[in-house]
């Protein structure tokens, strides 16, 4: 049904005739583009583009003809259209009125070159520094709001805070408990396997006690909560940002930091230590079961050994870190949520970023705590 589109060149009375024929539609554009590029364009002559043979024309076809006209005119030819049907004229008028020119070819992305690579490193560095700067700014803003709240404690949104505690704490108990239990089992198994070679199986209990109470319990819980609740904070606040709900809040005289951020920060700061305690208990339970099953250490013997291995401080060193980690996770999650701009795409990107950043900052903070505790000789 579609007529093949062609362009034919011929010489007549000292002028060049280019005859376009057939259906100049988008489906034929690739083929016509090749033909037109293959044409030998003259310079400084009279050229007639004869459009009488065109059956059907769409914008793609019209553009190809217009482009050819422009290329001919640029070479100093005297170009004119001939036999253009009246019904097709408005199409050319539209394109001409917009002064349509070929777009510049897309430049090669600069980071494929060495200079581009170095420039990119610089860009990323500056971006990271800016990010840190604005994150500290956000921390300051939240602190100020907390200070204002302390001056007027009735402004605390108790219901919202309790709701956050339920969602981030209570609802996370099954997964935190199960994972801690499994880590206890794995640690006990691996520890027993290694220590048995020295005949020191009983020290598996010391290993478990110190590792789980000091480090693993709190770190594991913080990472699970960063993935579970930190991401939720970003997605919730980000979606509100896309829907302009945050803007609406501001115009209604509500402070988004007070309404959205503080209940999340307080909720998480209060629940994470409790979750860590629960995780410690479940981890030790896994250890008890595994040492009993593989090493035959009875439950009373396990706790007897544990009492010699750890002190109250071993537990507190783990739990003290929890509120700090909680504040980091909640603030990074909320901060990235406020950074969402415009689209659904950005919600997804920033949610990922929020989880990665909060886990990173939590581990950095954990290292800082280790140094601090070793200086304090705890």
């Amino acid at each position, binding site marked *: 049904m579609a007529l093949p589109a062609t362009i034919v060149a011929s010489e007549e009375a000292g002028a060049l005739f280019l005859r376009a024929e057939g259906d100049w539609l988008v489906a034929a554009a690739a083929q016509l583009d090749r033909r037109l590029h293959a044409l030998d364009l003259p310079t400084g002559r009279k050229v007639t583009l004869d459009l009488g043979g065109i059956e059907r024309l769409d914008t793609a076809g019209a553009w190809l003809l217009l482009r050819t006209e422009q290329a001919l005119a640029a070479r100093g030819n005297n170009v004119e259209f001939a036999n253009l049907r009246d019904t097709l004229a408005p199409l050319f008028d539209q394109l001409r009125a917009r002064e349509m020119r070929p777009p510049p070819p897309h430049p090669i992305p600069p980071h494929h070159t060495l200079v581009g690579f170095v420039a990119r490193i610089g860009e990323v560095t500056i971006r990271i520094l800016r990010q840190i700067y604005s994150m500290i700014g956000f921390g300051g803003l939240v602190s100020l709001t907390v200070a204002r709240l302390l001056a007027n404690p009735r402004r605390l949104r108790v219901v919202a805070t309790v709701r956050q505690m339920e969602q981030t704490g209570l609802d996370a108990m099954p997964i935190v408990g199960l994972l801690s239990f499994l880590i206890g089992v794995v640690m006990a198994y691996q520890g027993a396997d290694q220590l048995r070679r020295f005949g020191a199986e009983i020290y598996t209990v010391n290993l478990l006690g110190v590792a789980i109470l000091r480090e693993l319990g709190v770190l594991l819980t913080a990472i699970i909560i960063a993935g579970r609740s930190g991401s939720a904070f970003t997605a919730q606040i980000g979606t509100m940002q896309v829907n302009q709900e945050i803007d609406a809040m501001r115009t209604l005289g509500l402070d988004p930091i007070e309404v959205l951020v503080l209940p999340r920060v307080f909720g998480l700061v209060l629940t994470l230590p409790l979750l860590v305690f629960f995780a410690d208990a479940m981890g030790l339970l896994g250890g008890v079961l595994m040492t009993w099953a593989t090493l035959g250490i009875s439950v009373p013997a396990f706790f007897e050994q544990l009492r010699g291995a750890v002190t109250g401080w071993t537990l507190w060193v783990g739990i003290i870190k929890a509120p700090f980690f909680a504040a980091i996770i909640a603030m990074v999650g909320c901060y990235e949520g406020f950074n969402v701009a*415009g689209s659904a795409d950005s919600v997804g990107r920033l949610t990922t970023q929020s989880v990665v950043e909060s886990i990173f900052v939590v581990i950095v903070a954990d290292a800082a705590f280790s140094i601090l505790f070793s200086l304090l000789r705890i």
Partner: protein
Amino acid sequence: MAGEPDEIVIRVRGLVTRFGAQTVHDGLDLDVRRGEVIGIVGGSGSGKSVLLRSIIGLRRPEEGDIEVLGRDVLNIDTAEAHELEQRWGVLFQDGALFSSLTVMQNIEVPLREHCPMPEPLMDEIAACKIALVGLPEPTADKFPSQLSGGMRKRAGLARALSLDPEILFLDEPTAGLDPIAAAEFDRLIADLKASLGLTVFLVTHDLDTLFAICDRVAVLVDKTIRVGSLAEQLADDHPWIRAYFHGPRGRAAHPDGGR
């Protein structure tokens, strides 16, 4: 374009649409002829957008038959549906641009999918559409979130036009445009219709657009539709239609000042 002047490109028969207990369309019949601009008007909730969605196959009606370009939209296999989709373009209310792609990449999506061609040519054709809908050149490399609502709408139109479709479905195209841009939009649609033989299915509230470019107007009232020329609609004495065309805004938009 091929075909007789009075060829019917969209034929709707006995359409019934229900949402739970609420009936929106009850036995609606509609014919759209090739090369005409038909304006669909009606109160909020009268089912204008639902009618559009049913015709393009996004919503299955409870009863009725819908034919587009001679194909039964409700009983169509995937291959035929794909072929049909290349012959129509749709502009959704908010543009519905892909947010992870730039404007130019958005326009190139249908080209890339259906008409393989060299990259530079694709950029040229996309740039044509961008110019055609009146967007400034630098818009091409922007992302939808960086555009204003009116610009997003134009970019959406450019994407709907990218395969030079035979039928253009527009859902409230001039809402959110300033009056100058809306008038330019009307002229653009009229020019495209004249030069490409485009059939336009236009859901609108904009009375100026109705008076400027619509050949026929279909009014959704009483769960069915009344189609006629503007003159016929203006003479209709159905209370809602009278209120619509002879209200203060209708009179203001009318070329003779509403006499």
